[in-house]
């Protein structure tokens, strides 16, 4: 791809502009996958019969934390 570039030399202070510099055609890699939806995982576990209900996956109330 062609693009504009500003170049600065910190020793001389000289600044140049190149209006039509050739750059590689960059193809960015994928971003990280979306976060796991823990509610869907819980539904799958319930659906597969691995747990009785989503409530079985929760900590007790006095733990002040929920697994889901």
């Amino acid at each position, binding site marked *: *791809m062609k*693009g504009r570039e500003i170049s600065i030399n910190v020793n001389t202070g000289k600044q140049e502009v190149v209006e039509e*510099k050739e750059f590689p055609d960059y193809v960015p890699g994928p971003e990280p996958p979306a976060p796991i939806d823990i509610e869907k995982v819980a539904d799958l576990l319930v659906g597969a019969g691995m747990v009785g209900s989503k409530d079985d996956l929760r900590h007790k109330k006095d733990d002040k934390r929920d697994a889901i």
Partner: protein
Amino acid sequence: MPFGGGYFRGTPSSTLTWRKLADVTISGGAVTSVSITGLDLGAAKTYFLMCHLKNAGAVQATIYLEQNADTTLTNYYFEQFKADGGGITAGRANDPTIAVLAASTEVNFNAFMSQIAGVEPRTLSLSARAAPAAIIAQEMCHIHDDTTNVTSIQIISSVANAIDDGSTIRLYALD
């Protein structure tokens, strides 16, 4: 005796100061790249790069940090954490990504870069990206798989001329 028994060998009266090397505000039209040359990271040991970039278009651009004009993406690696309100994700790739400039908005990223003799330069960047209501926090670790002393850096957009007028790039050295 953590400080009194000979463990601390620095000179207490010595100081380090940040010296500004470059201060660029994009004007006269959007750019694809800002190249800063005449550097000597090995001598300075630490640089601080402060960027606030504005996207000139409606397409998301990846911002690369390249060194010594090495444009081969696979000569770099990065590892990242990203928090987007819905969760935290991590990822690693074989390219020089240092930030992501979402469509029609801005990114701020601040990066510490260091190098010691004979080893690869390493950079740690923290960024605030995306539109206000969709704010994303992102931390990027970046390594150039090349032990050559860094004498220039290039901040490059994966999309042609995505870095808009008004964008600022500042580089400091810690002396």
